[in-house]
């Protein structure tokens, strides 16, 4: 089969859309922190993307997608993109490479939630390189390369496990290692620019169409299904989180957009396997699960500051499970629990928990290692001054 221009056009643009999600995360997070750390959050997103872009080209793509070693990792056959062709079936191999690259970059950007307002840039670069190599690349290999999850038949259409469980639980581990922000709990640490968070959320929702529909790797009915269920789930998550927070007080816009992201995360692994009506359920429950997780985190006094764990980690977990429940053969060829296939449900849980455990544990070790050698955290003075001035010598205002 040769290259199809329609498929190629689609995935090229999808890759661009997913790229835009990385600054989208930066804006989303940047609006949620205090003004003195606004630039820092944006810069971390860009730096994550740039660092991973090179890592991926040099060897990351190969680790994830080159021929398998023991079900765990790819070999170095594709290092430096050797043998990655501009030809391919449907789309060029090289296009698959860059489409995967933008996912890898985004994932590291999501992780910055766990160290917001207190991380040293230099240490983050080192950590990020290690994390992408030792956490993201293996997970991508497991689920989408020739790794054990793929062999087991675990379903992860667009990255619920690889991207969201991994980044969410990594953020949690990081937050545990780096410790709470000074004054967390005692002070009120308020979002300084909610409109920027909403704009970031809009870019995420927009880019997510590329993320999920593009994961069909073709401009076909499957892509259309993914696109449609993505929007439905996002809308449902928006409304359930809004409603739940309304019951407890007023319907804030941060809750609204967080619900939308929760819905987007939850549908991610399922987008190529479930139908529109199931997407309402997945998104609606996703909004509630993530809102509950957030309340739990706050109650536990955990400073996983910008809720990557609650939204991406727990939303991804629910999505993986939900895929096992709602999958229907008419869409993706595989049935889930409600269509009588309990074993798929079990596989989903095993794969999700394995990914969770792996991402959490390895991140914990990496974070500790970086902390003990380079120091992950800025000094208290720098934290007080804010990372914009302390780390970047710049100021968002003035």
């Amino acid at each position, binding site marked *: 089969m040769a290259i199809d221009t329609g498929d190629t056009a689609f995935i090229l643009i999808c890759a661009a859309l997913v790229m835009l999600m990385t600054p989208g995360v930066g804006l989303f997070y940047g609006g949620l922190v205090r003004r*003195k750390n606004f630039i820092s959050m944006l810069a971390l997103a860009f730096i994550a993307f740039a660092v991973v872009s090179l890592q991926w080209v040099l060897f990351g793509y190969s680790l994830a997608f080159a021929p398998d070693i023991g079900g765990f990792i790819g070999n170095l056959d594709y290092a430096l993109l050797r043998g990655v062709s501009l030809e391919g079936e449907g789309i060029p191999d090289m296009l698959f490479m860059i489409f995967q690259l933008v996912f890898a970059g985004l994932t590291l950007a999501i992780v910055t939630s766990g160290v917001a307002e207190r991380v040293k840039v230099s240490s983050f670069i080192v950590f990020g390189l290690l994390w992408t190599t030792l956490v993201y690349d293996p997970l991508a290999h497991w689920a989408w390369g020739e790794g054990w999850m793929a062999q087991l038949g675990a379903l992860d259409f667009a990255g619920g496990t690889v991207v969201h469980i991994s980044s969410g639980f990594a953020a949690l581990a990081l937050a545990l290692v780096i410790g709470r922000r000074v004054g967390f709990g005692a002070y009120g640490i308020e979002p300084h620019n909610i409109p920027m968070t909403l704009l970031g959320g809009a870019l995420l929702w927009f880019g997510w169409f590329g993320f999920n529909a593009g994961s069909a790797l073709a401009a076909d009915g499957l892509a259309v299904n993914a696109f449609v269920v993505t929007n439905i789930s996002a809308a449902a998550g928006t409304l359930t989180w809004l409603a739940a927070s309304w019951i407890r007080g007023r319907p804030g816009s941060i809750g609204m957009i967080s619900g939308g992201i929760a819905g987007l995360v939850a549908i991610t692994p399922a987008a190529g396997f479930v139908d529109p009506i199931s997407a309402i359920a997945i998104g609606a429950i996703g909004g509630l699960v993530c809102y509950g997780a957030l309340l739990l985190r706050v109650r536990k006094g955990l400073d996983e500051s910008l809720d990557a764990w609650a939204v991406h980690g727990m939303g991804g977990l629910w999505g993986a499970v939900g895929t096992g429940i709602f999958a229907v053969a008419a869409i993706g060829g595989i049935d889930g629990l409600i269509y009588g296939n309990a074993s798929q449900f079990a596989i989903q849980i095993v794969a999700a928990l394995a990914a969770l455990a792996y991402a959490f544990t390895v991140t914990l070790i990496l974070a500790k290692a970086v902390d003990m050698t380079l120091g992950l955290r800025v000094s208290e003075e720098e934290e*007080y*001054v804010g990372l914009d001035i*302390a780390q970047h010598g710049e100021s968002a205002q*003035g």
Partner: protein
Amino acid sequence: MAMKMVTAIIRPEKFEAVKRALEEQGIYGMTVSEVRGRGEQKGIALKYRGRAIPVDLIPKLRLDLAVRSGDADLVIRTIKRAAWTGKFGDGRIFVMPVESVTKVRTDDAKPPER
């Protein structure tokens, strides 16, 4: 009624605590603005590659409260207690004389005569 203007520069994170503490003392009226500032110590010196780089301006909130002269001390003490963390940058409170305070809205809800 003699009044004083109490101007407090506090860390933004402590605003809610200060406000609540003032409310408990029956002090409600205030005007708040976003400012940046540094203390007498030349701000904080960040160590950067061995050199110390002074950091000048850190986001703060400025609270202006016109209070009865007799309440000024209470207000100062209340702010001091609530804004305190013991770390650099806890802030300053200034008191300045006020000669008159006028309410724009006349209480009988009629426009002021021309």
